[in-house]
């Protein structure tokens, strides 16, 4: 059932857009509002949580090889509590997928396609993602490898802004102390804890020893990219960074080389679409496989499209406009890391204790 046909490199490349796609657009604003001009430090602090998350995912995979979160949480917490936890987890994943899709569609609609109904934009993307998920994890990985260069390239085009950047905006460093920085780190922690989704891809990786290396490389790349984007917004906009909804959009609009290369936000659109395709596909994949393993279904093809429709609905329900999404994100500060980082930590502790207990019992029975 679980064919090991993913390479560790593919998994690392898959995780890069999965975490970064919505991050680079939404994070500079949120962190600037708390940390002011120290926003570039926030991602570095948040990456420690990412390290912890990856470590947890790998450790749990070592303790229960070949099994995903759904399967070993039943083992660790017992049948009833495990199933209950996965029930909550499933709703969390579906809700988050809905919110991500909605964020994606809001950006597209608000800046490019003003008159298109938002449901169409969301449904189109979910249709493509559902087709990708039906193809299995290797299709997802192959698409990720092809699309990630398209995703990374526009970030380099931002370097064309160097003449307009003012590096002195970074001073004074840490003038407000470390507390605002920690407050600002709360949001990136949400994004970094998404690295825990690795636990759903690990059973399919053919060389898990290299998996750790590539996951850490992926984490470093994400942190670097986020810091780069944050610094760029800071140097370009200065104290105004917290006032703009999408500072990167402003940056792309600002590029003007010799009156010919102007208004590059279409590049941003291209980058946003392919990045989000991979992100939403990864989340949808996790949702589909959680449901499948929770209910012990034999085949996931029948539930992919219905779950996709559910994700679209969850993206529209109770979110009348984008300001509500921002409000919900503040709630998400508590919910998301707990589902993805805190509870797996508890799971890991329980699992390690259990293992110790069985080895103790084993030793004592000798």
């Amino acid at each position, binding site marked *: 059932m679980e064919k090991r046909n993913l*390479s560790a*490199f*593919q998994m690392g490349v898959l995780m890069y857009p999965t975490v970064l796609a919505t991050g680079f657009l939404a994070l500079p604003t949120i962190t600037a509002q708390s940390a002011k001009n120290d926003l570039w430090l926030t991602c570095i602090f948040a990456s420690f949580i990412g390290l912890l998350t990856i470590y947890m995912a790998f450790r749990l995979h070592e303790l229960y090889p070949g099994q995903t979160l759904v399967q070993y949480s039943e083992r660790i917490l017992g049948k009833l509590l495990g199933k209950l936890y996965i029930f909550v987890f499933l709703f969390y994943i579906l809700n988050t997928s809905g919110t991500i899709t909605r964020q994606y569609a809001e950006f*597209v609609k608000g800046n*490019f*396609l003003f008159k*298109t109904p938002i449901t169409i*934009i969301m449904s*189109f*993307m979910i249709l*493509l993602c559902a*087709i*990708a998920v039906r*193809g299995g994890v290797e*299709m997802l*990985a*192959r*698409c990720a*490898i*092809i*699309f990630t260069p398209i995703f990374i390239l526009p970030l380099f085009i931002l370097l064309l802004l160097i003449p307009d950047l003012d590096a002195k905006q970074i001073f004074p460093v840490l003038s407000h102390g470390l507390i605002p920085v920690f407050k600002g780190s709360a949001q990136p922690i949400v994004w970094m804890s998404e690295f825990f989704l690795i636990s759903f891809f690990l059973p399919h990786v053919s060389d898990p020893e290299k998996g750790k290396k590539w996951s850490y490389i992926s984490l470093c790349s994400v942190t670097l990219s986020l810091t780069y984007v944050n610094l760029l917004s800071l140097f370009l906009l200065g104290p105004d960074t917290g006032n703009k909804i999408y500072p990167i959009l402003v940056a792309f609009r600002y590029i003007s080389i010799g*009156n*010919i*290369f*102007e*208004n*590059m936000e*279409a590049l941003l*659109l*291209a980058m946003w*679409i*392919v990045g989000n*395709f991979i992100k939403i596909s990864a989340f949808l994949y996790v949702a589909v496989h959680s449901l499948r393993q929770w209910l012990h279904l034999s085949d996931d093809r029948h539930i992919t499209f219905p779950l996709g429709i559910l994700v679209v609905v969850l993206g529209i329900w109770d979110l009348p406009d984008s300001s509500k999404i921002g409000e919900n994100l503040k709630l998400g500060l508590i919910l998301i890391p707990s589902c993805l980082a805190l509870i797996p930590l508890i799971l890991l502790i329980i699992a390690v204790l259990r293992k110790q207990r069985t080895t103790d019992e084993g030793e004592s029975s000798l």
Partner: protein
Amino acid sequence: MIRNFVKLLRKSQIKRHDVQNPAIESDQQQMLFPDLQQNEQLFRSIYSHCSDVVFRSLVIGGKRKALIIYIEGLTDVSGLDEYVIPSLMRVETNVPLGIRQLIEQKLTISNFTEVCSFAESIEHLSTGYPVLLYDNEARGFALGLNKWEKRSIEEPSAEVGVRGPREGFTETLRVSTSQIRRIIKSPKLKMESMKIGDYTQTNIAVAYIEGLADAGLITQIKNRLNRIQIDGILESGYIEEMIEDNPYSPFPQLLSTERPDVVCANLLEGRAAILVDGTPFVLIAPITFFSLMQSAEDYYQRFLISTVIRWLRYAFGLISLFLPALYVAITTFHQEMVPSSLLLSMAASREPVPFPALVEVLIMEITFEALREAGIRLPKQVGAAVSIVGALVIGQAAVQAGLVSAPMLIVVAITGIASSLIPRYAAGIALRMMRFPLIFLAGTLGLLGIMMGIIAIVLHLCSLRSFGVPYLSTVATPKINELKDVLIRAPLWMMDTRPHLTGDFNEYRQSAGLKPGPERDGES
């Protein structure tokens, strides 16, 4: 659910295919009779109303009656006249020879086969071998004297190049196999043949190099070929459609080529070739998408030139797919992307056009495709005039009439040129045809639509397989060693390893350290 419904519908309509071959009737399974008269009667009734079948009766050595049956036009009649009939007629009267000794000792021809049944005799007769029947012998002999009119070896018209051999395959299987044997002289080059097609009994040969090609691949190819039950194979395209992995995809999963050097290069990399009698186009399996974007000439020119031309080809391949859609998207939705000086002149030229950009582009693209198809079928003298001058004149007239705008015409012209850069016609036409859904998507959803189209195309390509090899295998499952032949064209002295297709493979094709230089050790 819909799939189950369709299956149910189909089950009620399926007729079991008749297993027995309708082209050969039951009495032809009969063995040859010892009596010559009976044989001749049955042959005459089988070949009734066939005016090109000739029955020549002989008397050998004054006593034994014999019969030669041959099909005029397929047989080397002069060979019969010079070698067979004289040597048979000059046999001395009193020597009691069985027919086999007769042929071994008296008949001066290079090849003969024994036939025991009517079906075998018919099989040999239809390939042009005359069949010699002897009185009181329940077996006959098919003599190897076939000759027919065939096209001489010419330069393939579809795959022209500046440098490289100018020979192409012909319609006769034996000539094609001989061309491959001339290039690959090793006895490890195996050619397994089979006949497919109830009425045409077309000879198919599967060529591969033992030790380089994976045995599982060859078995799979042969299984798929044996599965084909059809009344006639006219061209290798029939075989291609019957054995490919994804029949609904617009992209070809087998490469078809007319050049022996292309076939041999692929055989040396561990692929297999399928040669079909009656067509010069040979199929190669398994392939990846990048095989379709390579041309043989890449490897005959030096590596820097080839790398640059390869990049040009990739860029123009993308242009042939995306340029009209990008034009529609930018002029309809994202006008701010156009530089301001260009924007004014574009707006001015689009002013008199009554259609939106989407309709304008569709009109011109469809007209261009029609002109291109017509250009293939027009006679040579008219064709050149119509396709070049006509297109420009029509385009200019359309611009002046205000039907289309001049930038649009440039876009269509560049797209047309771009699609000619793709070396394989099948891949070029696949990319050309996918332009149209992209244009629709661009006209309705702008750049979002184009990106959705790109994602859909990449999704489709990622799911394709060609005999077990993923279609985008070198890029999507990155193999560093093979990337140097895909992204650039690495110098020949760097290409030490073969690409890994399926199963086990023979890794090294040349020794390391072959880089040339002015002075090597020990030489002056």
